[in-house]
């Protein structure tokens, strides 16, 4: 069976700064992988390479066995239609009401009629626990937690095969974070999607993943089932999951 997503030797630098230094990572169909790592280690850059927003300097990215590393423009559209993405800051379109945000991929990407797309959007909002009247508000009128939910509804509205989550719980209070984690875990299961998430929140990682990988110094230094994370035998992983200042990981003050 071919893996859903595979990264082989992916490298990316900005100017003289090497951010990704040969990433090798495999995500099986239907699994939920969380990549953990400190702030500024290149987690977002890695996910943007897979999404095609950033082009890697070297290496190969396969989606369903197809090399998509350098696919751009209209050639890439069939691949983009497999994806749903929840951005770190929500990235909702503030010029559009909530329902049009959720329905955006259906209307613009797939040419669905607006009246039909609106009903689909309202159903998507219901799945993330938002009532119908929220659909007609503007994103600026929502709290941070509600914006995350709308972002999640937008990501799942297009029925994606693969969903990406960039720090889904960052900036939320612990209760709202737990609600979002449960929503992610259940929606990924309902949609039957493969999920690739990145986070530095261990509680979130444990709750939404079946596999965890750790990114450090531009490489994946450990990967294994979530149940094994406490017995990884890897001092870097141990330091990270226990949040200890002392250990092999030296924090660079300047990102």
């Amino acid at each position, binding site marked *: 069976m071919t893996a859903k997503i595979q990264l082989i030797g992916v490298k990316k630098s900005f100017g003289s700064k090497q951010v990704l230094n040969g990433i090798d990572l495999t995500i099986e169909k239907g699994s939920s992988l969380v990549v953990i790592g400190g702030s500024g280690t290149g987690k977002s850059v890695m996910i943007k390479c897979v999404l095609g927003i950033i082009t890697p300097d070297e290496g190969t990215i396969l989606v369903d066995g197809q090399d998509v590393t350098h696919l751009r423009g209209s050639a890439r559209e069939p691949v*983009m239609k497999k994806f749903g993405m929840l951005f770190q*800051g929500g990235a*909702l379109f503030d010029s559009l009401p909530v329902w049009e945000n959720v329905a955006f991929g259906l209307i613009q990407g797939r040419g669905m009629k607006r009246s039909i797309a609106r009903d689909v959007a309202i159903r998507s909002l219901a799945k993330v626990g938002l009532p119908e009247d929220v659909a007609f508000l503007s994103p600026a009128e929502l709290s941070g937690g509600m914006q995350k939910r709308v972002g999640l509804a937008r990501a799942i509205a297009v029925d994606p095969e693969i969903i990406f989550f960039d720090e889904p719980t960052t900036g939320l209070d612990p209760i709202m974070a737990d609600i979002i984690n449960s929503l992610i875990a259940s929606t990924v299961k309902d949609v039957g999607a493969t999920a690739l998430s990145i986070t530095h929140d261990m509680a979130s990682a444990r709750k939404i993943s079946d596999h965890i990988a750790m990114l450090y110094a531009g490489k994946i230094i450990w990967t294994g089932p979530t149940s094994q994370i406490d017995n990884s035998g890897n001092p870097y992983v141990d330091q990270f999951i226990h949040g200890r200042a002392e250990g092999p990981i030296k924090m660079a003050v300047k990102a």
Partner: protein
Amino acid sequence: MNFLAGIGRAVLSLLAEIGRLASFTARSIAALVSPPIYSRLIGQQIMRIGYFSLPVVGLTAFFTGGALALQIYLGGNRYGAEAIVPQIVVLGITRELGPVIAGLMVAGRVAAAIAAEIGTMKVTEQIDALTTLATNPIKYLVVPRLVAAVVTMPILVAIADSIGVFGGYVVATQSLGFTGSIYLKNTMDFATRQDITSGLIKAAVFGFVIALMGCYNGFNSKGGAQGVGRATTSAVVSASILILAANYILTSVLFNK
């Protein structure tokens, strides 16, 4: 030695910037001629760029026409040629001042607004979100603004021309002793079709420059609110400089003898 290296670096980064702008322009034009066409968004932008610019453009054209009439009267007076006011006002307004004043006013209003909006979308990852929703950001954001600006600027300038001539008429008849009907007859008899169309062609080019510089600077903004502020400023400055440079080139091409 260091001094030379500094100049070298500045020249290289200028060339790189020109290259990026050229590639952005080429991608925008390619997106312009390929489907889908977002007619709904074009309509919205025509309202925002054209309709809401009418008051500023109208007011500035009126005062410019009035001041022009006054200056021509005073200048012509030295040679006993005051009667030439209507002819020179219509020539100056339709060929140069109408399009340039409207271009600069719309650059201040619209290039800034476009750069701020797109720049904010850039730094809040909304542009990345468009890509992940299988929508080409150039087609969705740039093309409607380019089309709307190129279509509406000639209309705005046609209106600016009329109001500018009217400004001259008001000053000439109210304080310079001209007779209304004669002033208008002289204006109509003197103005040629080429005077007017050359101004409208300029207007379309200025519209393209305004929307392009707004979009380009917005797309290239980085680093939060400060970056968006920088993008807005450089959109207005670069659009204004390019409008004046393009105006000179167009004048010399359209009126070459």
